C-alpha cells in the first residue's frame, strides 16, 4: 500500500508539471503578445516594453519556462492588476470560501443521491423511480447559473425566505478566524447566530451547485444497485432470511459504491468548474468569482493562479478516490495490481 501511495504521489508530481506546461503555454504562447497581456489593457507602448524586459519575455521560450516554474515553486503567482495584491495572497483569502461551498454541495449530493439511487433501484419502475429519473435527467441539463437565478427569484425575492447572495449579512460579524473556514470557525467559537446566518446564505448556492452531481450520483448508484441486487450472493442472503434492509445497506451498497465513487470523483471536478458560475450568481466570495472578475477586467495572472489551484485540487480528489477504491474493494487493492 505504501509503495502505491508513493507511486501515486510521484504521478501527481508529473501531472502538476504537465499542468504547469499548459498554463505556461496559455500565458506565453497563446496570446499574440504576452507582455501586453501582463501589462494590462491600458498600458502604454513603453510600459509594455519595460515589462517585456523585466519579465524576461524577450528571452527564448525555454528560459522563460524555467523562470516561470522557479517562480511558482517559490509561491510567486504574479500580481493582480485589479486588487493590487499578490495572487497567492488573494487565493489564500478566497479559497476557503470555495472549499466550503464545494464540500458542502458534495456532501449534500452524496447524502441525498446515494439513498435516492437505492430507493429507485429497490422500488424500480414505481413512481419513486420515475421521479428520481426526472431529477437525474434534468439535473445535468439545467444550466446551473440559470437554476441559481430562478431560485433567487423564487425563494429569495418572491418568498423572502433566504438572503439573495454573499456569505454573511451586513449585521453579522464574522467569527475570529481559527481555520479560516467560516462554518468551522463559527462552530468552534460557538457563535450560533453567525452559524445560522452563514447557513441561510449557503443554502441556495449549495443546492444549485449540488444538483448536477446529485443527478449523476443518483443515476449511477441506481444502475449499480439494480445489477448488484441480481447477484447470486444477494439471492442467497435473501434465501437465508436476512432482513431486506440489512441486505441492501450492508451487502449490496458496498459493492455498488465503487462506480458511484468514480462518479463522485468526476463530479467533484465538475463542481470546481461549476462553482465559477454559481459563485458569480450568488456573489459568493470564492476563487471562482475572483477568476470571473479578473477575466472580465482582462487581469490575467489571477486566472492562471485559479486554474493551477483548481487543477491541484482535482488531482488530489482523484488521488483520494483511487485510495478509497482499495478500501472498498479488496479485489482491486493496489498491492496486487501495482
Amino acid at each position: 500500500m505504501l509503495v502505491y501511495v508513493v507511486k501515486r504521489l510521484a504521478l501527481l508530481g508529473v501531472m502538476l508539471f504537465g499542468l504547469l506546461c499548459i498554463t505556461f503555454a496559455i500565458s506565453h504562447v497563446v496570446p499574440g503578445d504576452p507582455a501586453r497581456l501582463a501589462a494590462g489593457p491600458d498600458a502604454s507602448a513603453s510600459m509594455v516594453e519595460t515589462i517585456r524586459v523585466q519579465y524576461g519575455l524577450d528571452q527564448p521560450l525555454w528560459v522563460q519556462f524555467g523562470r516561470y516554474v522557479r517562480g511558482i515553486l517559490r509561491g510567486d503567482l504574479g500580481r493582480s492588476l485589479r486588487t493590487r495584491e499578490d495572487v497567492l495572497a488573494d487565493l489564500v483569502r478566497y479559497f476557503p470560501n470555495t472549499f466550503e461551498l464545494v464540500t458542502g454541495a458534495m456532501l449534500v449530493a452524496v447524502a441525498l443521491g446515494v439513498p435516492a439511487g437505492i430507493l429507485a433501484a429497490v422500488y424500480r419502475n414505481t413512481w419513486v423511480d420515475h421521479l428520481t429519473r426526472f431529477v437525474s435527467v434534468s439535473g445535468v441539463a439545467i444550466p446551473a447559473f440559470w437554476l441559481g437565478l430562478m431560485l433567487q427569484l423564487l425563494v429569495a425575492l418572491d418568498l423572502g425566505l433566504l438572503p439573495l447572495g454573499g456569505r454573511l449579512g451586513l449585521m453579522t460579524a464574522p467569527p475570529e478566524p481559527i481555520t479560516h473556514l467560516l462554518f468551522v470557525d463559527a462552530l468552534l467559537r460557538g457563535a450560533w447566530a453567525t452559524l445560522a446566518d452563514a447557513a441561510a446564505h449557503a443554502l441556495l448556492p449549495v443546492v444549485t451547485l449540488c444538483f448536477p452531481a446529485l443527478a449523476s450520483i443518483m443515476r449511477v448508484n441506481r444502475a449499480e444497485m439494480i445489477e448488484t441486487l441480481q447477484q447470486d450472493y444477494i439471492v442467497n442472503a435473501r434465501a437465508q432470511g436476512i432482513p431486506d434492509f440489512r441486505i441492501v445497506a450492508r451487502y449490496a451498497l458496498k459493492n455498488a459504491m465503487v462506480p458511484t465513487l468514480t462518479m463522485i470523483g468526476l463530479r467533484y471536478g465538475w463542481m470546481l468548474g461549476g462553482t465559477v458560475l454559481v459563485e458569480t450568481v450568488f456573489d459568493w466570495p470564492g476563487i471562482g468569482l475572483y477568476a470571473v472578475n479578473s477575466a472580465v477586467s482582462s487581469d490575467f495572472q489571477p486566472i492562471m493562479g485559479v486554474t493551477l489551484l483548481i487543477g491541484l485540487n482535482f488531482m488530489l480528489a482523484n488521488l483520494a478516490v483511487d485510495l478509497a477504491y482499495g478500501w472498498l474493494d479488496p479485489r482491486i487493492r493496489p498491492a496486487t495490481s501495482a
Partner: protein
Amino acid sequence: MTGRALPLRPLAVWLAAHRSAARELGFYARTFARSASSMLGLGLVLGFLLVAALGPWIVPYPEDGRGAVHLEQKLEPPSARHWFGTDEVGTDIYTRVILGARVSLQIGLLITLVAACIGVPLGIVAGYVGGALGGVIMRVTDVFLSVPALVLAIAIVGALGPGILNAIVALSLVWWPGYVRLVQGKTLALRAQTFVEAARAIGTGRLRILVAHILPNCVSPITVKASMDMGTAILAAAGLGFIGLGAQPPYPEWGAMISHGRNYLPTWWWYSAFPGLAIYLTVLGFNLLGDGLRDILDPRSRA
C-alpha cells in the same frame, strides 16, 4: 413487376441484398421507439434543428435579431403580441430566443466536430500503436482532464480576449481529451480481437487496419458521446456567455441573454427565464437522444 415500378427496383434490390442489415436497422428503430425518453429526446432535438434551420423565417419580428430598437414597448410582460415579453430596448424576446437556436447549434457542432477531429485520431494511435508515443498521448490527455473544462476555457479566453469565436476556440481546445480516452480504450479492446489479428496476419497495412477495421467499430461510442457533447458544449458556451466571456450583446446567444436579463430581475423576470428554458430543453433533448442511442448501439457501456 411491370416496367412502371422501375424506380423502386434499386431499393428492392438493395433490400434483397442487405436483408439482414435492413432487419437490424428495423430492430434498432423499434427498440428506440419503445423508449418514451428516447423519443422525447429525438423530438426535442428535431424541434431544435427545425427551429435553427427556419429561425429567420418563422420569427414574428425578424428585424429584432439585428438590434432594432422600439423604446415605446420596452420591458413588456409576455402577451399575445410578444409571447416571451420584450427587453429593455423593446425587442421581442421570443424572436431572439428562436434566433439563438441557430447560434447554439453552430456552437455545439463546431466544438464537437473539432474535438472529435483532434481526439479520435490521437485515441486510435495511442490505443493501437501504444508504446512511448501512446504513453505520451495518454499522459497529456490525463493532464488536460485534470482541470475542469470550463476553468481551462476561461483561462484560454482570458488570454485570447472575450468573444463568441474565442469562446468556441477555447472550448474546442479543451474538449478533445474525452474522445482520446474513449477511443483509446475501445481500440485497445479491438486490437486483441481475432479479426484484427487475422487482418494483420494476411499482411494488411497498419493504416488500413486502423481506418478499415478499428475506426468503423468505434463509430457507435463516438456517436453516443458526440450527441451528449452537443448538449454539454452548448451548456458550457452558455456559461461563458453568462459570465461575459462568450457572445456579447446584442448577439442572440442564450447565455449572454440570461446574463443581461439578470440586471432586470426580479420585476422583469421573463428576460432571463425564457432563454434558460431554451437551453434546458435543448440540452435535455441531446442528453436523452444520446442515452437512447447508447441503449441500442452500445448497450454494454450503459451507466
